[in-house]
């Protein structure tokens, strides 16, 4: 990608920061976008910075925002707090109850664990991690490379555990 151009991820991140931030964050976002405005004149891709239209107002007042997408379409982002995406608070899942034997549940059937007298603060949406991709299958033949003796046998399956020999 040529230097100075924005990829889809950066454009999305810029939009999200504007929508979910306060007026101050919006100003900061505007400043960030202004710095991103410095693009080569002869560019064929419609990009955000030149087309963002912000109205800075007093602190605490929601700011209407217009974003230009990749196709040149202008999109108005409502300034209402109701438009700010709300992510559910993360839950703790009980995989195994006290006294139960065997492995924890892999099926994801969640029984939500609620700690006593503890308030869990919902995370900021931008801090949520993306889910891991789907795995396919185990690797094929693995070639064992012996280390200098005395060398243990490699574990057949990678595993994490409190360190031991």
């Amino acid at each position: 990608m040529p230097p100075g151009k924005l990829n889809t991820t950066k454009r999305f991140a810029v939009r999200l920061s504007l929508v979910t931030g306060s007026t101050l964050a919006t100003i900061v976002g505007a400043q960030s976008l202004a710095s991103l405005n410095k693009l080569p004149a002869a560019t064929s891709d419609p990009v955000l910075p030149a087309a963002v239209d912000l109205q800075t107002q007093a602190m605490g007042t929601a700011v209407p925002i217009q974003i230009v997408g990749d196709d040149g379409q202008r999109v108005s982002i409502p300034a209402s707090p109701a438009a700010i995406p709300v992510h559910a608070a993360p839950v703790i899942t009980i995989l195994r109850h006290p006294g139960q034997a065997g492995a924890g549940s892999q099926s994801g059937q969640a029984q939500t664990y609620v700690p006593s007298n503890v308030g869990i603060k919902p995370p900021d949406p931008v801090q949520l991690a993306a889910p891991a991709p789907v795995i396919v299958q185990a690797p094929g033949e693995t070639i064992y490379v012996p280390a200098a003796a005395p060398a243990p046998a490699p574990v057949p399956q990678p595993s994490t555990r409190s360190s031991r020999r």
Partner: protein
Amino acid sequence: MTRQYVTAFYAMGSQFNVWLETSADGEAILQQVPAWVEKVEAQLSRFRPESELIRLNARSGRWVEVSDILLQAVTKARHAAQLTGGLYNPLILPALLAAGYTRSFVEMPAGDMRIPDLPPVTVPHWQSIEVRPRQRAIRLPASAQIDLGGTGKGWTAAQIADRLRAYGPCLVDAGGDLVARGKPQDQAGWVIDVAEPGQAEGIPPVASVVVTDTAIATSGIDYRRWVANGKPQHHLIDPRTGQPAVTDVLSATVIHPDAALAEGYTKALILLGRDAGLDWILRQPQRAALIVCTDGAVLATSDFQSHMTALSTV
């Protein structure tokens, strides 16, 4: 042709396992890894009389010029202390020694050890570790001593994985703390079991997860434990008390992009206990964690479960 290679060796008091997928000479590459780890261990081990860590500890209270390895390792440990609010604190060595952990764990005697009956050790604040990166210098508070066992293996695994990544996807297991770079061919990630704590081999795992380009670390009070003066001890010192942590968490597993920080987070979870630990981890930017409690319960955050959920779709 790309092939997967694996090697295993003992280092840092643990078994290392290293997987590498490469079309290069995987055997020749992996045969170098023990020497890479030895170079780190020679600098960072508190069980090597000639190590740089020992020399640093002997000069506490003074500025000491150190190697890049020790500088980076201490800087990372300090960062882990900062992010855990000091729950992980590398200045615990005197407390570890007072508890009886005076030698490599494999050399610890079985049965009840007799150790001097000392008063609880006050662990200095982590912020008293001073680092001057430009001068490559470190100053420990006077009479303080540092131990990097809490983050050292994860940090080492990351160094090795970053070197191997040039040859292909790899997975470095440093005694149960793993770092993944890339993913195996035609797969979405490395499949890693979370071992049932305190159990021999062959016991089904507590859970299995899929990871790529991240680290997963586990700490626990299930293995490195002993009896001294008739009292049970273990190696996870609570800096707030200078004593082995009193906790209802048997082991904690964390997935985090930074291996040393993953290790630090596991210590924080154990020290805080079940409820406070889960509350704490859910307030962090990285919050993928699983704990096994002393009553056998297993709890996982939703972020950790997302790594498990991916596995169940196979």
